[in-house]
């Protein structure tokens, strides 16, 4: 299949970016990133600059790949990261636009690559259980209701890719933060620090320059791991509880 790509090119954070047009020949069995590999090999053969994009596991779990494809984070397929997206979902002759995540808290590094270390700092603010190695009691000493465990797991499957931020008109990191707060709050092991965790993580999220949540739900709709909006409700509850406990 013959495709036209319109790709965002930008040398660095302080230079002006622009879309550039490329032609590429792909086949329907390729993954989207393999199609970009083909383009880059072609550019290298012509001694032109390849397109910088981030990727690693290429099986949808590391959360590294991050690009807006035809206006949607990770492209058109539901619950699919860009690396798991295959070309059979595109048509012969189609034009595809590819852009980086755009958010103040994700400064651009080059082309499609952005800096997402603000997510690490949100986790650093409290996204953990304070237990040192060696302090743990036997794994079966505290039974956990199966449903709680499943809910915690579902929230914990967030891959930290940032699609939620890229999808949100306010560039809010609410779903990412909520997923961690909710994962740990659901489990007895994480309950102890729940109040403190919610307030500290929310404070850090604000400090990083992420926008406010206005409940559009775009984050969850575009999330490749289908992290539920319920987590945001849960975060709001936890946060309110923490605020009242503080007062």
């Amino acid at each position, binding site marked *: 299949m013959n495709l036209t790509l319109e790709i965002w090119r930008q040398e660095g954070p302080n230079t002006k970016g622009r879309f550039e047009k490329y032609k590429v020949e792909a086949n329907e069995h390729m993954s989207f990133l393999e199609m970009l590999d083909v383009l880059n090999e072609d550019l290298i053969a012509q001694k032109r600059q390849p397109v910088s994009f981030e990727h690693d596991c290429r099986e949808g779990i*590391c959360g590294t790949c991050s690009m807006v494809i035809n206006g949607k984070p990770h492209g058109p397929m539901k619950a699919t990261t860009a690396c798991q997206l295959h070309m059979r979902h595109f048509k012969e002759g189609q034009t595809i636009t590819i852009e980086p995540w755009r958010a103040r808290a994700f400064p651009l590094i*080059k082309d499609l690559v952005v800096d997402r270390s603000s997510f690490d700092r949100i986790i*650093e603010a409290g996204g953990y259980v304070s237990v040192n190695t060696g302090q743990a009691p036997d794994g079966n000493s*505290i039974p956990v209701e199966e449903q709680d465990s499943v809910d915690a797991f579902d929230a*914990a499957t967030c891959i930290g890719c940032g699609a939620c931020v890229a999808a949100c008109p306010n560039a809010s990191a609410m779903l990412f933060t909520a997923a961690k707060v909710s994962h740990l709050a659901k489990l007895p092991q994480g309950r102890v620090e729940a109040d403190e965790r919610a307030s500290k993580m929310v404070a850090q999220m604000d400090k990083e320059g992420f926008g406010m949540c206005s409940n559009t739900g775009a984050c969850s709709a575009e999330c490749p791991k289908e992290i539920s909006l319920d987590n945001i409700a849960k975060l709001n509850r936890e946060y309110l509880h923490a605020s009242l406990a503080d007062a």
Partner: protein
Amino acid sequence: MQLNANIPEGELKEKWQSYRSSMKLVAPNNKRKLEVIVVGTGLAGASAAATLGELGYSVKAYTFHDSPRRAHSIAAQGGINAAKNYQNDGDSVYRLFYDTIKGGDYRSREANVYRLAEVSTEIIDQAVAQGVPFAREYGGLLANRSFGGVQVSRTFYARGQTGQQLLLGAYQALERQVANGNVKLFNRHEMLDVVIKDDKARGIITRNLVTGELQRHGAHAVVLATGGYGNVYYLSTNAMNCNVSAAWRAVKRGALMANPSFCQIHPTCIPVSGSYQSKLTLMSESLRNDGRVWVPKSKEDVQKIREGSLEPSHIKEEDRDYYLERRYPAFGNLVPRDVASRAAKTVCDEGYGVNQSGLAVFLDFSSAIERYGKAEAHSQGISNPSDEKITELGEKVVEKKYGNLFEMYEKIKGDNPYKTPMMIYPAIHYTMGGLWVDYNLQTNVPGLFAMGEANFSDHGANRLGASALMQGLADGYFVIPYTIGTFLADEINTPAMDIEAEEFQQTEADVRQRIETLMNVDGSKSVESFHRELGLLIWDYCGMSRNEKGLKTALEKVRALRKEYYENVYVPGKAKDYNPELEKATRVADFMELAEIMILDALDREESCGGHFREEYQTEEGEALRRDDEYAYVAAWKWSDDLDHELIKENLTFDNVELKTRSYK
């Protein structure tokens, strides 16, 4: 050179306990003054950095990723073993030890493996306390499943994302120490050399991957947790950026590479679909709990399937060859990985492969769906359920167990594995070989330690499923935090490293030179094309089966390819810039050298064991023929720039298990 594994005296069962109670300690006030560099933030690196930070050491952690959470440990699917015996099915520390030694085809160290089995139980406790959401039974207690090569259920799991959940636990523990100021985290920093001063590892040189700047970092000890080298094969289940460079740089500075030819080929991966393919995707071994592996008995059916004129589900039960169940009745579909992989190769070599390239077999869930469907109907009190109802109920059970894997398969192949069997083929997945370490996980270079997949110590010639997560976390949480003290206790009077010292300056200059050399070639072939070529060569001659003639050919070809690399590679962009092509170029340069040592190791080992199958050494039935009298040793290789590499042997002694021919029949 003589290798000393420093195995403590005493009974196997008491070694670790008594060693731990008698080893040198570093007092808390001194820990603060001691700096430790940890390179890599996967399961081993993150757990070690976090734990060393908790203990009060001054830790610096490095990752080339943008975040520690991206390390490829994240992709481990199936689970983590632990000798908890929660299922009351006869498991014990000894049994896990025994299974691991036997599974590794008697090419690992008894003492290290016993310690691994011992601390396995603590890992589960630790992970649960961190909030890792393991699968649970309705009663709220932890669930288990079985993996290949064992007859007990000791694998703990979090759906098909166990690695992700364990890594997030370790990552969060690490971030907690970053917040506390005990760990300084350097993301997007790639280690490009290790600095040796007065014969001890005292620092590293990194390249800041955003700016391209080279930087010197000093410490009292350096710990490498940088994973395996499976990407030498180009196509593997490893992530695209996995590489050998940190370990290889250590080798170039005098560390030894042990058993480099021991590579694990995983039997259940999605087959290759085309020449543009960038990586292979694993389908978890846990699927073999319920999936049955088969090919058609007749070549006519094979042909029809390849043409697409026959649906696999229409082939009758009696016309299918469930070759694993036939050849290995005791373990059936749950034979270890090396055995399952070779069996798949055999049927495909005989012409029974079921896709167009002839390199695929079926993994079929229809029996499991029927079995679970009937059980579910019974428990719901449905009498005389229809076939449709059984299928519907059975699919639900299978979805609950393996849903995400089935989805992943469907995304990649475009086929629905609930309705038609998966197609699978073996692929490189893990490397048992790695840096030689002693019982303390210290390499032969004092102050340089290696953990997790980066070392060679625990899996012998074949790793059992769900044991990589176990080893990474055992090393990081429960071994290195103690054993590093045996080195650091003598360093309490050593001041902080002066990174202006000559050794640091010189090592940085060496790295700069290597980068300039690659940038200046300005040839006409991309790094990627060289990598592909190298991978194919190693796969063909040093992959699932090897022979003397092929290995000798491969050695010549690898040397020629390496020469061509430095004459004709093209690296675009600038050295002092964000430049992924340059990152690849330095990594592929190191793979080119590693490949040589792998081939030599495979040539030296004139026996078949685990993942290493030499065609000259097989039984009449085609099973691996191990030669314990001559080859019960660890082969540790010392690199020499004039290509006169030295093999140093560490003889393995087995006092607690009897060496037997591994049989899964």
